[in-house]
């Protein structure tokens, strides 16, 4: 048995490595993108539209002669920023709501849980579409739309954790001693919910990428000519016969990122969560 355990743990460490490594690459590209790429992301070579991969253009050009590789790299910042900011925002909001609901209980809890349940009945993407359509094109709308769907599940999760922790002796002691609620929450309850929060957030990041890309694909993302991957996919569709690279490349970029987040989240969960051993 211990043998198997060690083997499993070794595999999980591998997950963290691979996932983390890929994520680092993406972050680096997103951060350094504009300085690293051979062409401007809006630089048009009208004499060389829909060119296949070549020495000049490693991934070819699109229908108005823009270098696909450059656009891909620069586009990382939209997807990555939107996904990371969304899940962090959702984590902060969700954790706050969950903490309050779980700790105070009673009517506050009932109200917040009711609200969360209501929100949970709307499928994530539908909610995102509705919000994005009201706020309009741009990063704000994209982030708000993606965040919305994650707040309720995170809140519920944290609430559950808080309910567990609330029963523990050290919390009861703190209450008995007369410490203020806020202090108890911050000092004694929160740390035990943090692990859950971190794991869940990283697991949701992959979904955030998919939702963001879907919004871009549906035309609800950032304004043209921003090289957002989902938008590039929908724009490339009509050229599928003559220039499939326009569709393949952004899709691979999205998939790899989601894969990285998924695998990293898995590794994190198995490393940090004592209850989840395969």
């Amino acid at each position: 048995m211990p043998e198997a355990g060690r083997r499993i743990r070794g595999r999980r460490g591998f997950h963290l490595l691979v996932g983390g490594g890929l994520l680092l690459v993406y972050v680096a590209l997103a951060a350094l993108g504009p300085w690293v790429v051979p062409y401007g992301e809006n630089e048009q070579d009208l004499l060389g539209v829909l060119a296949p991969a070549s020495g000049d253009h490693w991934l070819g050009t699109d229908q108005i002669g823009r270098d696909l590789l450059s656009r891909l790299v620069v586009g990382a910042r939209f997807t990555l920023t939107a996904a990371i900011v969304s899940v962090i925002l959702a984590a902060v909001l969700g954790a706050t709501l969950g903490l309050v609901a779980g700790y105070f209980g009673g009517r506050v809890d009932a109200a917040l849980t009711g609200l969360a349940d209501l929100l949970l009945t709307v499928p994530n993407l539908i909610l995102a579409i509705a919000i994005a359509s009201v706020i309009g094109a741009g990063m704000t709308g994209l982030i708000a739309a993606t965040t919305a769907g994650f707040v309720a599940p995170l809140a519920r999760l944290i609430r559950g954790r808080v309910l567990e922790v609330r029963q523990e002796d050290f919390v009861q002691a703190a209450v008995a001693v007369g410490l203020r609620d806020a202090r108890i929450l911050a000092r004694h309850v929160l740390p035990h919910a943090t692990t859950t929060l971190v794991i869940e957030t990283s697991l949701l990041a992959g979904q955030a990428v998919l939702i963001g890309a879907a919004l871009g694909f549906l035309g609800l993302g950032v304004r043209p000519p921003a090289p957002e991957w989902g938008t590039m996919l929908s724009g490339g569709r009509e050229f599928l016969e003559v220039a499939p690279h326009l569709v393949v490349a952004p899709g691979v970029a999205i998939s790899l990122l989601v894969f990285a987040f998924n695998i990293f989240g898995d590794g994190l969960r198995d490393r940090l969560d004592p209850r989840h051993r395969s």
Partner: protein
Amino acid sequence: MNRRTALTLLSTAAASPFTLGSPLRALAQATAARTLTYGQSGAVTALDPAQGSFATYPAGYEVAYCLYDRLVDFDENLKFVPQLAESWDVAPDLKSIRFRLRKNVRFHDGTAFNAQAVKFNVERLIDKARNPTNRPLWDPVADADVVDEHTVAIRTKAPYSQLLNSLAHGSGSMVSPAAVEKHGDKGIAQNPVGAGPYRLEAFTPGQEVVLRAFDGYWGGKPATDRLVFKYILEASTRIAALRTGSVDVIDSVPVQLVAGLRKEANVEVVVRPSLRPMGLAINLSRPPYDDPRVRRALNHAIPVETIAERVFFGFAKASDAPLAFDTQGYQKQRPYEYSVAKAKALLVEAGFKPGAGGQLEREGKPLKMTLLASEGLFPGDVNIAEIAQRAFQQIGIDVTISKIERGSYWDALRQERAALAFDLAVFGFNPSNASGLYHLESLFKSNADDAARPTVWNMGRYRNPKVDELLAQANSNPDPAKQLAAMGEAQRIVWEDAPYVWLHVNQNVTAFRKGIKGVELWPIVFTIARRARVEA
């Protein structure tokens, strides 16, 4: 022929569980050899020249040209030829035309076509309540007078040189008055009865129209027994259907796919320039775009030739006039040379200087632009916007693109002046009655009230009294040479005033299987099948 039948049968069988009108399909299979199927890029939802007016454009019109006859028709080069009228006399004051009608013509329902029928139709089209569409074509018409059974005179309120254009336009289709009685004004759209070479057999709005040859057609029974119009929105599906033979004709082949299609052995590709010049409409009510120097600078900043040749693979031609090349009255102008230097110089002349950060500004205000782009309404519209954005950025303008969904684009354009939310907007106008005068009036004649919504398509609030005067002259002068001269001068002035950034005229590409003869591609974006016949 056997293979075609087999293919038709196979594809029909595959689609049969969900194709409505299955009994008709069985009939069609029996006469498959004399059926022509046309895969259209637009859906047909209404077949009435008045109510709904052959929605959607141009698909409905293409069906209408087979179902209905008009007093006069266009030929392939958009010249007027007799149809239901054998001959006509235009009055010297341009206020009426007397038509001598063809005799022994019957509508599909057997009723006779005569002067009374013409009067009925004209009155229906003039009446704003019964015909809310195509108003610019029918508002100038006063009435029709029955002179005798086969002679009718149509009068206009003021001298109007484009009456024949209105009558040759799809909306001039003659509907059987008996049918209007029977189905009501609003019923014709789903139950069309005309006097054309084909009659309606089946109609599933938004999906399919089936027409059958009309035995009693005055011009003789058409060569093809049956015409089927199918709605196939996506280009690759249309092309695939053409390749497999489940359709015989398709329209709107995207330019990037033409080369591939030309390689097919049994497919023929036909290309015709359209009548629709693409451009960026400028909102003259918003400074600094009220300054003609700025507008001319914009025209110098875009590489229109390269766009036409490269981005549209040569299936477009750079504009050199406000009208398209084949429009009646087109007159070539001096093209705006592509020169970033010239553009920048003009902006300097207009008082713009680079401010902090390199962006141009005048009196402390930076030079910005909101560019409206539709999505999928015009060929390559988003691409055009992105190219324009970059081109303008290179001369120092900060451009934001605002994408509008195709369904709401017209509304976004035709707003009250205070509600206009753009500086420039991607736009192309197609004068479906082929009249250059109609085109110039729609876009460049002064609005009745600039503060309210534009009268037709003068969203930019362009106003030049000289142009108005010339257009009025072209309308009222009986001498065709003088009409052309007035239109030419009007075009010259408009071109110089530059209320548009003119780009190019797209070509329309239609494809059909070898062995189909007689399919005409008209510049007004219509693929006409009424004289088509299937051979071999």
